[in-house]
């Protein structure tokens, strides 16, 4: 029996897991699949409420098998689901890696999953530290990051410029589509980290606004 403390889409959850006898897990090469019984799911923000999907306290049978790298067949009480690890959202090596060598070694922070195509963020406890600098979607207020890999076309507001919320800071281009990157809040542009003509990767830091 093992208890995992997770955050699923931001909600703290405690899940008790019991590995099932070997015969159920047979057929999985070690490291690529697992058969378990989920004996309890508890929302830690509201311990009185059983977690979503836990059926009247009955254990749920889970079987996970890797179909191809990054994609799992996920059987939940016999219902067949597809689970894809969205490496690109975590700044991993698959996302925008050739646009200038960003985020190398990525993978820290929460896992971004697609469960039957529905995006789920899963922070799998202590061992997944969120790196400072932040994974995709993170970032500190005032740090304006590239929403996509692409080319910096123009700088609309240089260092020292006072900006209002929504004011264009940078024009980027990808796939022949141009996009204005706007100020998240009012402030002064402290630093512009890119220059026109530069290739950037998704989530690269572009501008800091104080």
């Amino acid at each position, binding site marked *: 029996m093992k208890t995992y403390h997770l955050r*699923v889409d931001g909600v703290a959850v405690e899940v008790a897991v019991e590995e099932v006898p070997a015969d159920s897990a047979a057929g999985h090469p070690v490291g690529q699949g697992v058969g378990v019984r989920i004996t309890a799911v508890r929302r830690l923000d509201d311990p009185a409420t059983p977690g979503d999907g836990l059926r009247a306290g009955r254990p749920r049978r889970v079987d996970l098998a890797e179909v191809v790298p990054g994609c799992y067949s996920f059987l939940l009480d016999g219902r067949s689901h*597809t689970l894809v690890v969205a490496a690109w959202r975590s700044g991993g090596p*698959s996302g925008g890696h050739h646009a200038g060598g960003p985020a190398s070694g990525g993978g820290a922070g929460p*896992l971004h999953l697609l469960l039957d195509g529905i995006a789920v963020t899963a922070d799998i406890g202590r061992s997944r530290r969120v790196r400072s600098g932040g994974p995709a979607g993170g970032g500190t207020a005032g740090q304006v990051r590239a929403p996509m890999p692409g080319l910096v076309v123009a700088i609309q507001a240089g260092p020292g410029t006072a900006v209002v919320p929504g004011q264009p800071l940078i024009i980027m281009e*990808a796939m022949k589509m141009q996009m204005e990157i706007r100020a998240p809040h009012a402030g002064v542009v402290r630093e512009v980290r890119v220059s026109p003509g530069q290739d950037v990767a998704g989530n690269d830091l572009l501008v800091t606004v104080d």
Partner: protein
Amino acid sequence: MLIANRGEIALRVIRACRASGLGAAAVYSDADRAAPHVAAADEAYRIGPPPAAESYLSVGAIIDAARAAGADAVHPGYGFLAENPALAQACADAGLAFVGPPAATLARCGDKAETRRAARGAGVPILPGTDPLDDAPLAREADRMGFPVLLKAAGGGGGKGIHLVRAAADLAAAVRLARGEARVAFGDDRVYVEKWLDRARHVEVQVLADAAGSLVHLGERECSIQRRHQKVIEEAPSPALDAALRDAIGQAAVAAARAVGYVNAGTVEFVVSGRGFYFLEINARLQVEHPVTEMVTGCDLARLQLAIAGGAPLPFGQDGVAARGHAVEARISAEDPDAGFVPWVGRVGEVVLPGGPGVRVDGALVAGMEVTRFYDPILAKVISWGETRAEAIARLAQAMRETVITGVPTTVPFLRWALAHPVFRDGTYTTRFVETEWESRDRTPPDGAAEAAAALAHLAERAAPPPVSRDGSVWAQTARRDALS
């Protein structure tokens, strides 16, 4: 036949060449040396470095490749030089047949103001709109028309340079972006405005015309499911038209195409609002979504294009066109629907494509291939056919369930969601579907999310360091790091 394109459309034309008994020569930029269309062709010629402006958009390089291949004809595909009169003219000058309308017709269709006038002259209703204008008169005219307005590139197509402007205050910024995009994409920064109808549908009619003047339509396609003014799901026939409206719009399409002297395969675009329909433009090319028309009519449009370019008459008249059943197409692109559909580049991991009765895949998608920022992010199209609309949708929904692509985000999650949505299922959607339904969808974690996360955590904990996976997934990396710590 020299195919002056890449990706799935190059492969589509190569297949048409095979069916017609013609040899196929491909062209490639340095980014595409290992691309599927090169391997699928009989011959292949390098046309330059990765940027399209120096390769797929280079008329000189295309003509040189056609000469080197000893080709008799050039098929431009869609995008790139397909609607650029310069390639059609260069082909004519070099004694090569161009698979498309003559240069003069392309020039006329490329000038949206002129096609609007021609359509109006032929009795086809058009939306209020302006000619291409400078910034100041454009702002005056937009004010007079009343917001919202749609800002469009006069030399444009493919959704590029199009911006919806809801208020006068947003016009200047939108004009700046549209001119910038249009300059890069078409080398022409002229823009104009058109009245925007909020609860409208985008319906287009496929036409075919031979050089002798025979002109038929092959029914309509419904293309209202769009993001960034680019289509993502299309179907034929349109669930919005009844028999009378279908007949009227088909006749209007024929009249508009005739008014510009159209030859070969083309598409006449309309906006439909209630029982009113308004001409938008003529797309002088084979469209991305042409397979839905092929699935219901049984025609091979690309092959018919080759025959028409070879001087053959249309093999059927309007009475010979019959549609059967229903077809739906889903476009799979490398973009992130969970982050505003931003295009993405990177290495594709694994690919599992669907199959089964009535399911067709037109793609150029290979596991491990690189998606670059130089070209459109489209990876594949999956098209389904059914005797009824419900059957076609059910088949496509299952196909999307079978499809797995790792390594880069794709539109597949959006497509799965859309095909199950009641508004899509009942056929009442409008061009605002993505904006009103997808952006405000329920984001509650699905049943099993916690269980899946726990099973992954448990797998990581018990696993020995797994072998290095081909896509170096975060999961594999995390598992490795944990095993070592």
